[in-house]
Each structure stands twice: as structure tokens, then as C-alpha cells.
């Protein structure tokens, strides 16, 4: 199973994301921001970092990268896409996820091991978890405060599209303690903390993040064997 990891100018975590993909049992495929096609990958990860230097707004310029035209089209056709941190910001800017990420309420860059509760287990990227499961993965971001208008928030909550919430002290002021959301069909997920940094005990606080990457494999192979469209 080939899973693409996109590198934008200023991406930081693409190697960790590729390593997480490999540890989950898939083949990581490096994609470049200037690529026009997705080289037959079965899923795409937009990694963390500071694409295009975070100039203008985080993710605002990455949204116009040639590869994003292909990602947007494929996402509409059901391709699983995971945006982590800056990748989450890019997905919001691209209109693939609702809402926006703004400056942390306390104006500080926050880095710590963060407890989360998986609220929705049915998405392409959370199939390996159970709803209500509590996990700990690293968080490191300066603009992680999730905002959306009240109608959007209510709709997200009512339709199970809030994928994960922060536990304990809210690290950035995100509305409704939102740490991760998904699109209507559950194939596109954005998450602010970093599951790809919690896949080995040597370097992370847990291996709780690996579930995101095994989830997509489960989702894809399940879809293949049963013939149910993603």
C-alpha cells in the first residue's frame, strides 16, 4: 500500500510522517509540492512544519501549490488525506475542512505531550481507535486555536465530525477543545498535535499515534475486500 507524504518548502516533519507510514506497514512515497499527479498513492499525508515560511497566514500559500490541485480533486473522490499541524492549516485554507486555525490565545508557542480523547473512531484515520479512547501524543504549535462560526461548530458536533478533543488544560484556546476534525465523508482529517511523533517509545511519549497510520491501512484494505467505496 503506497501512502504519499507531501513536502512543501518549509515542511519539517515529512521524514517522521514517512517513518510512521513505514512502521504501520505501508510504503511511504515522497511527493513534492510541485508535483501535478499523486503517483497512484492510496492516501496522502500533509505533514507539519512551516510551509512557505508561514508567510501571509499558515497554509495560505501552500494551498495554491500544484500538488494541492490533485489532492483536492482526489479528496473529493474519497482519497484519505491526513493533515497534521501545518497540514491541518493547509486543509482548512484549501476549503477541504471547515473553520480556521488562529494564533494561540496566550500567544505562546506551546510544546508538550498532550492528552486527547478520540471522539469519532469511524474516520479513515481513526478506524483503529475506539470512541472515547484517551491517547497522549506531542503537540507543538503557535497557531493551533481552532475557530469556526457557531453554526459550523454545532453541525460538526451533531454529525460526529469532531474527531478528537484536548483533555486537561486547553493548550491554545481552541473552541470546544477541538484538536481534530474531519470532512463530511470522513476521508479528510486534520489534527493539530502530532501522531507521527508518537510511534516509537525511543523518541515519543507513547506509541498512541501509530493508530492513525494503521487506521488508514485498515480502512483501505477493508474497502478493497468488501468492495464498499471509501
Amino acid at each position, binding site marked *: 500500500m503506497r501512502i504519499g507524504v507531501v513536502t512543501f518548502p518549509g515542511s519539517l516533519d515529512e521524514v517522521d510522517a514517512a517513518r510512521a507510514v513505514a512502521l504501520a506497514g505501508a510504503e511511504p512515497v515522497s511527493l513534492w509540492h510541485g508535483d501535478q499527479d499523486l503517483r497512484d498513492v492510496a492516501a496522502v499525508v500533509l505533514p507539519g512544519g512551516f510551509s512557505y515560511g508561514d508567510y*501571509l497566514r499558515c497554509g495560505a500559500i501552500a494551498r495554491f501549490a500544484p500538488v494541492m490541485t490533485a489532492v483536492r480533486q482526489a479528496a473529493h473522490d474519497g482519497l484519505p488525506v491526513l493533515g497534521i499541524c501545518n497540514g491541518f492549516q493547509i486543509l482548512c485554507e484549501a476549503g477541504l475542512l*471547515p*473553520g480556521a486555525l*488562529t494564533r494561540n*490565545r496566550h500567544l505562546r508557542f506551546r510544546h508538550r505531550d498532550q492528552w486527547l480523547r478520540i471522539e469519532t473512531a469511524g474516520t479513515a484515520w481513526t478506524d483503529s481507535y475506539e470512541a472515547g479512547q484517551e491517547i497522549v501524543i506531542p503537540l507543538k504549535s503557535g497557531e493551533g486555536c481552532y*475557530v*469556526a*462560526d457557531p453554526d459550523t461548530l454545532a453541525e460538526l458536533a451533531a454529525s460526529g465530525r469532531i474527531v478528537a478533543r484536548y483533555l486537561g488544560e486547553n493548550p491554545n*484556546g481552541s473552541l470546544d477543545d477541538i484538536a481534530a476534525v474531519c470532512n463530511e465523508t470522513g476521508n479528510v482529517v486534520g489534527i493539530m498535535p502530532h501522531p507521527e511523533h508518537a510511534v516509537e517509545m525511543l523518541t515519543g511519549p507513547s506509541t498512541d499515534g501509530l493508530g492513525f497510520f494503521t487506521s488508514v491501512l485498515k480502512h483501505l484494505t477493508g474497502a478493497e475486500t468488501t468492495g464498499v467505496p471509501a
Partner: protein
Amino acid sequence: MTRVVVDVMLKPEILDPQGQAVADALPRLGVTGVRSVRIGRRIELEFESTPERQQLDELADQLLANPVIEDYAISLPEQAIPEEAA
């Protein structure tokens, strides 16, 4: 040449922590009586000729501002001044 200015501001209902931090610092300068501070972004563009209003709206709406959280205002502060007006 036409100069176009796009002012981008966070929507009123969106918390502006940067503005809030400045507001909190003002009393340390001895400045009191400031009720609120909102910080935005001013973007200046120079066009070779006067652009279409629709083109400017698209530019502001799709790239310069994020309409989910920001409002924008487009202005042409100095219209292209003909040579003889100088």
C-alpha cells in the same frame, strides 16, 4: 500605475490575542483609557494598469484574507495621476 491597498482585519467576533497583548501593555507606557486594540494587516499592491474590481475581490477573498476569520477592505488611495496634473 495604480496602487491598491487591501486592509485585512480579524472579524469582530474572532479573538485577537495580539491586539489584546498590546492593550495589556499600554498601561505600562502610562497610556490609559484604551478600551480595545485590534491588529490587522495592510497589503499594498501596484498594478501596471487599473485592475477590475472583480479581480481585486477574488484576490482578496482567495489569498490575501481568509474569509472564515477575516474581513477585508479594498481601496485605491491614489488614483493613477495623469502627468499634467503634477
